[in-house]
């Protein structure tokens, strides 16, 4: 049942965006009830689809005046429910803002609207010999605005960096409704690095309306190797040896036997039979360097017991090697009715121990876990498989997921390497950060969003009241004391 406030707002939004830019029909609203994390659903009160930055500013201003919360959504591929709407709020969808405004090849910059897909940027600048390095697996669909919100990485981010390394300016609508630039595209703007603070803030500090991206020269040469090992341990040793030799590959990915089985069932990727683990190593750079590094990596893999090594000879073979890895998440649907995908990170040197521990936890609980991960940077994606038709199975899978995150944190890692905290992992934030850490982070939020209307309820388990004087709290938080919030 929509509130009178939302009804009134709908009228105002129609004057801002035109009738085609406002959705009020419940069936249409329901199509926006979740992002890529389908376990969290909530139909928004209203959906608006602006086409200009000025419209976004007017929308946010209207929400502020009506004291209605708002959530931004790009392509809706996020995996932490960062774009989970509010039933009492407005969902601002940026998919109609998808122009590539300008490309400055000589400065290696492009200016794009937030709804432009990640891959569209690289495609647009390819004629100039340039590309946009952050490459999440969802890059065909995911939006640059969403990438900014999550500080997205992708398989190639160990060497090439994440979104925050490739954004040099942002035009945003601040939560108070002002349209303002952060940074000027140079990457050396005087003042506080608000671009650096904004990237990865998961839509809680405002809505980005233009992004100045930094472009990178396409490497002269790329080689892709697939190496099959009998055990995960051998694969892990190979990874350590490669990094230890001083080589920085463009990507190192690893999959275990269960993940390989799923990928095979889904896309018939024909990875070597009997593999306990496969490693995909990609090397990029000047031709001579890549040739030498490829030979080194081959030698290292053989020394660590690889029983089969394939090297892609052309783009088609390269794509074939990657197909299995890129399909892995969706593929586990072939071997399990449901699954939870985690996004923990551990220091690379802790990988072997953590993987062993995950196997122990899996065996003890009887819950299967398929492992796919960015071995180069220790970013794990354990896929916890369960049958949602069985009572208690989901809860048990959640518990195992939580235990895996505990494992990551106890080894000095993180609860999220690239998917974000969103609504899904806010309850785990206290595992990584103490109350003073979270309190201090929220000072930033108070600076941008004192009214608390911009994607509220995401990231932080307990919101900070912005009128508060910073300092150590001695009594329970007022919202906890009143029973409105749980303290985790």
């Amino acid at each position, binding site marked *: 049942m929509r509130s009178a406030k939302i009804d009134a707002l709908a009228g105002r939004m129609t004057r801002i965006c035109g009738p085609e830019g406002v959705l009020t029909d419940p069936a249409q609203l329901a199509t926006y009830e979740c992002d890529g994390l389908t376990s969290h659903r909530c139909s928004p009160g209203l959906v608006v689809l602006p086409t200009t930055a000025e419209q976004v500013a007017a929308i946010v201003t209207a929400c502020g005046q009506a004291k209605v919360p708002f959530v931004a959504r790009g392509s809706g591929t996020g995996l932490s429910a960062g774009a989970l709407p509010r039933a009492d709020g407005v969902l601002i969808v940026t998919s109609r803002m998808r122009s590539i*405004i300008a490309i400055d090849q000589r400065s290696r910059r492009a200016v794009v609207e937030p709804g432009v897909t990640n891959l569209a940027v690289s495609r647009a600048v390819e004629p100039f010999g340039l590309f946009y390095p952050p490459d999440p697996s969802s890059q065909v669909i995911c939006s640059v605005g969403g990438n900014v919100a999550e500080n997205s990485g992708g398989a190639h981010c160990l060497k090439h960096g994440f979104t925050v390394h490739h954004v040099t300016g942002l035009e945003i609508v601040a939560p108070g409704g002002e349209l303002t*630039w952060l940074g000027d595209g140079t990457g050396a703007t005087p003042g506080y*690095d608000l671009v650096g603070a904004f990237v990865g803030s998961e839509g809680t500090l405002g809505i980005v309306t233009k992004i100045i991206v930094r472009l990178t020269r396409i490497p002269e040469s790329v080689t892709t190797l697939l190496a099959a090992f009998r055990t995960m341990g051998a694969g892990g040793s190979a990874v350590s040896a490669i990094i230890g030799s001083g080589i920085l590959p463009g990507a190192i990915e690893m999959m275990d036997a269960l993940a390989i089985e799923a990928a095979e069932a889904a896309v018939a990727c024909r990875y070597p039979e009997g593999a306990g683990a496969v490693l995909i190593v990609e090397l990029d750079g000047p031709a001579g360097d890549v040739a030498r590094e490829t030979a080194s990596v081959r030698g290292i893999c053989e020394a660590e017991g690889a029983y089969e090594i394939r090297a892609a000879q052309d783009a088609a073979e390269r794509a074939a090697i990657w197909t299995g890895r890129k399909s892995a998440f969706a593929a586990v649907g072939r071997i399990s009715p449901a699954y939870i995908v985690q996004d923990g990170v551990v*220091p690379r040197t802790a990988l072997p121990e953590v993987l062993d521990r995950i196997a122990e936890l899996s065996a003890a609980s009887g819950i299967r876990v398929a492992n796919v991960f960015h071995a180069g940077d220790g970013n794990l994606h354990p896929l916890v498989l369960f049958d949602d038709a069985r009572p208690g199975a989901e809860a048990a899978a959640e518990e195992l997921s939580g235990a895996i995150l505990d494992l990551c944190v106890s080894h000095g890692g993180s609860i999220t390497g690239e998917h974000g905290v969103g609504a899904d992992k806010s309850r785990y934030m206290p595992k*990584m950060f103490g109350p003073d850490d979270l309190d*201090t*982070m929220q000072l*930033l939020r108070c*600076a941008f969003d004192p009214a608390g209307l911009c994607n509220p309820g995401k990231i932080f388990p307990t919101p900070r009241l912005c009128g508060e004087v910073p300092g150590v709290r001695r009594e329970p938080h007022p919202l906890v004391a009143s029973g409105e919030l749980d303290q985790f």
Partner: protein
Amino acid sequence: MTVGSAADVLAQACSEVREAGPDDAVAGIGPRFVVRPAGLAEAAAVMRAAAAEGLTAVPRGAGTRLDWGAPPTSCDLVIDTRRMNRVLEYAAGDLVVRVEAGAGMSQLAAVLAAAGQRLALDPPPAGRRGAREKPGGPGTVGGVLACGAAGPLRLRYGTPRDLVIGMTVVRADGVVASSGGKVVKNVAGYDLGKLFAGSYGTLGLIAEATFRLHPLPEAISFVTLDARDPAAAHSAIEAAADSPLAPSAAEIDRPSRQAPVRVGILLEGDPEGVAERSARMTRLLGGGITSVSPVPPTWWGRGAAAPGGTVVRIAFWACALTEVIAGIDDAASTAGLDPVISGSAAAGVVHAAVDYRAAPDAVSRFVLSLRAAVGNDPAGGPVPPTAWPASRASVMVLRAPPDVSAAVDPWGPVPGLGLMRAVKDQFDPEHRMAPGRFVGGI
């Protein structure tokens, strides 16, 4: 409150407290006290004490960049971080190091080099202004972070904020807070490391930082040439940056208006690869190659350390290099000056250094007309979308003699100033951390 009471409160908080002397002046402001906390706990205690006593404070490492930016309007307390100089954790296998902010960059480099690794930052040693042009060292980790200091390697590896993956700070009220962590891939929570990098001590004290590292290259090579004019230098820089040869740096240096523009390209990697790429780079850049050598040219990366009383940093979109140099030349001519121009041309950052003997009003005129010629209009964005690509720049006076600092705003206009003020008000509501040192008088 009396001087005695503040001294007592500080002495309870910190094992090393003394009254400040003439050498402790911060950009001409004489503080009352200098404290040297032994570690994080004392640093927090000191900040609590300063809060209790209402003392304004400026953090100081080696003091090599204390005169960057605007002079603070007040400085009761200098917080000297150099006792906090430990390497706390170093996991060579993970290419990650956690270090206290008072550690020297050279000290840290030596530790990392022993394991064949490096923190890929090469900020030039910052000299003192004026007649006492004593070269300083590269400074401390905290100072480099707080000032966002970078050098030629910025082209490939970025600036301090690109390499920091975790940070522990002490807030103005004494609360200790951490963000990020010890792994390169980490998006949990806000990244305070990005916020504090380049904040010039105005948000709090940087106590510890965790960095991602890179392997030390086995071989390096500098390919240098003399270009007859800025346009020719620009062509060479573009050719190098556009090439597939992955240069780590592409720098220019012009000692005076009449001199040729020296161009230097740095290539790093394994010995065979570096030799191969140097040969390819030489062919690519055509004639005029003055040398290919593993030794840097004498002028390499002097950037902010260029001899001079005033150093101006211009950040621009790289396509505009020729126009930017022309803008510097015009502005300098009208003021009767001939600055040294040097910097990371391919990365869109150059410095203009004016001799310390130049008349202050001439220097002020130079800065103001340079800003008018090439500067940003922050209200409208880099330039209106109809005029892309941008050829607008920011002009910041990194350091200058007091008469110049008094006459011209070192920072110039910046976008997002309103939000920056809001951030400052949240982190340091009493405005006691390096007040007045930052953009917009923050």
